């Protein structure tokens, strides 16, 4: 189901009011979307909400949808802050636009990339998705940078993230390619890692750009 942006915002507003503030329903004026917007009709037609006497309430399907919408919103916020380093109001407004793109599995990928975060940058909980449950049951600790590793820990390289293509090519020349196994030998004063039978030393600048799936 692909909802319009306004419809998603209404769902978010109801979810915050009912799940986090403990209300049963929300007054239409407080959703932030004007009452004559077609989004209301859209939501009713999809049997997600009920509107009675100026109040808007979830139907059971709507609650689930609302939860996923809020999840996408907060993941988008995390993405803005953690990865793209866009903070403050700018980050919030960009996150609001971005969240609508995070469907059809994109949210799962982002959630995994962000290592299944539990809270948004404002400290509010992010409702867990299936991927988070999966990760927890498998004991998958997610993906971290090489700088988060302890000496002796090993894992599979998940991806390299670098703005500088030359840096990336240097790493690739050292055998740092997604799918290869990497072992951190030492982290101070420089990072020493081993790929295959070769050892390399790099500084934290480069180590920060290698993302690894932990083996535990």
């Amino acid at each position: 189901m692909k909802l319009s942006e306004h419809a998603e915002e209404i769902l978010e507003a109801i979810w915050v009011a009912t799940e986090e503030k403990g209300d049963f329903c929300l007054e239409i004026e407080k959703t932030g979307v004007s009452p004559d917007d077609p989004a209301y009709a859209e939501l009713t037609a999809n049997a997600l909400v009920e509107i009675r006497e100026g109040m808007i309430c979830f139907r059971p399907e709507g609650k689930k949808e609302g939860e996923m919408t809020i999840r996408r919103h907060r993941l988008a916020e995390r993405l803005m802050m953690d990865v793209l380093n866009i903070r403050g109001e700018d980050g919030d407004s960009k996150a609001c636009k971005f969240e609508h793109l995070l469907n059809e599995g994109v949210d799962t990928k982002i959630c995994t990339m962000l290592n299944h975060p539990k809270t948004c940058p404002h400290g509010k909980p992010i409702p867990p998705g299936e991927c988070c449950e999966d990760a927890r049951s498998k004991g998958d600790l997610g993906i971290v940078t090489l700088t988060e590793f302890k000496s002796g820990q090993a894992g599979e390289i998940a991806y390299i993230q670098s703005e500088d293509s030359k840096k990336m090519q240097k790493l690739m020349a050292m055998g740092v390619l997604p799918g290869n196994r990497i072992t951190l030998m030492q982290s101070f004063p420089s990072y020493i890692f081993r790929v295959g039978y070769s050892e390399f030393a790099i500084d934290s600048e480069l180590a920060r750009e290698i993302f690894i799936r932990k083996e535990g």
Partner: protein
Amino acid sequence: MGKCCNVGTEQLKSAGAIKKVALVGNPNVGKSVLFNALTGAYVTVSNYPGTSVEVSRGNTLIGNVHWEVVDTPGMYAIHTITEEERVAREILLNEKPDVILHVLDARNLERMLSMTVQLIEAELPVILIVNILDEAERIGLQIDLPLLEKRLGIPVIGAATARKRGIGEIRKAISEYRLSDSPLKVVYGRNLERDILEVQKLMQGKYLFARRALALLLLQQDEEVTGIVREAEGGNFPLLEQKVKEIFFERRESFHLDLSMERREIAREVLRDVVTFPEKDLVTWQEKLSTFSVKPLTGVPLLIVVIYFGLYQFVGVFGAGTLVDIMEGKLFEEHFNPWITGIAVAYIPWETIQELFVGEYGIITLGIRYAVGIILPIVATFFIFFSFLEDTGYFPRLALLVDRVFKRFGMSGRAVIPMVLGFGCDTMATMVTRTLESTRERVIATLLLALAIPCSAQLGVIIGLLSKSPGALFIWGGTMLFLALLVGFLAARVMPGKPPIFYMELPPMRLPQIGNVLTKTYTRMQWYFLEILPLFIIASILLWLGKVTRFFEKLVTVMTPAMGAIGLPKEAAVAFIFGFFRRDYGSAGLYDLQSKGLMDGRQLTVAAVTLTLFIPCVAQFLVMKNERGWKTALGIALFVTVFAWSSGYILNRLLLAVGFA
């Protein structure tokens, strides 16, 4: 059609032209050792990645055919990033070698085979040398070379060149080489193949590389290759360029990564069942030592031990002390000089000409005595120390240990090699700064070498000079360290450009082979001597001329106020004039002054500091000019001169104020 062309070149070659074989491969896989084994010539081999910054060429006779052997700097891929890699590829692009030996490390087949794939793809005449087989076997790796040969469709030879294993087979393979008719067909994923084809279709020029490989290099935005293709395609190029831009834009996210991953998959497929890994990893004593040397808690004490025994005891006490006493004190002063002076006086009637050879500044009594009696023992012991350490594989470990500290001075840990080498010979070290990545880093390293790193000969003389007064030695050392840190710290802040990044391969630690260490020391000594001996002789002649024409006295008079400003007697000017020819020569001049009792402790300290900082020798200046260009070299020289004198002035005032004598 391709065949008929090959026949044509064959005939041309057999008509007497020299054939060419090029060695390529990752850094530190034994290319230089193989080069030496093939040619019998000697290039410096070390257990240090990136030492062959220049292309070495040699000749060898295989059967009755003359072959030129070309050793190239290490390269990781055909698409080049660093200067050294560009130099290596240049040979492949322009020289059309008859055979290319791709040397790789048996322990890291998967990573390195990616380049073999690229060479095959470019349709180059490749023979694969799986080297360092002995160490691979020791850790329990088994490699099925015949299967690998079958899969790749090119000759594959196992070798351990450091142990002379496989050399005969390699020579045989070179002489019997025929272009393979069924090399590995490199096939990528469907989308990539489509993109390659689209670019390839638009290419019409004639090239030494297969178009398919060039198309990939174009897509990788390789500037040099783009230039070559632009030339070859002429009017056709804009269309091609447009296509390349289009595809690159579509794939901008991850083209390099996608390509590397595809190549790894190809390498994995080729290697399936070829390599058998040992069940458990063997931890060797070399690995234990390696771990020991890189942990700060044990590595720093080890460094101190290395410096104390290697540099202080061996080079300082033994080289600069014991050996110099024997060579300079006994051999020259007591025996050789009186004898040669006697002969000169007996056979040369004119006193002025006598002076040229055996006088105060005589070519023999001064020039040769300094060069052979003082400099030779010190530099020889330093180079033995350096070469030994280099072969153990300790330097890359030292580099990672100091990287954090060096970053504060605008350099990466990589710069530790030229810095340590600078304590041997600043001129040689300035040449080695080209292995550093960015211009910024190179300039800072060049500056510090010119200013604050005393070369071994100078160091030996100065330590000898000041050793009678521990206070003076301490002040000299402290001042030098402080100024080096200060200048490095400021340079890192003032110089424009990005801070350097550090990455380095750590070769396994090895016990050096004494023969290799000695040959290396000998080669370095030879280079050093050929470079300095003429300078010493020229210096002696100029000094003699100066004395004869009285120009020298005038110069000393002119320099007297400058000497006075830093509290030195006017005779010290002689040492500074010497210093311009060689730094060590200058220090040796101070040595003479001290023996004559012309300077007290304060003056000696100030002179030693100023002279150490002062202008690098002529040779170093010339190398600076070659490596960094006139502008930078002159800029550094001017800065160094002003800085040396100001520091001397301030130090003199300070010492006077505290009453140090």
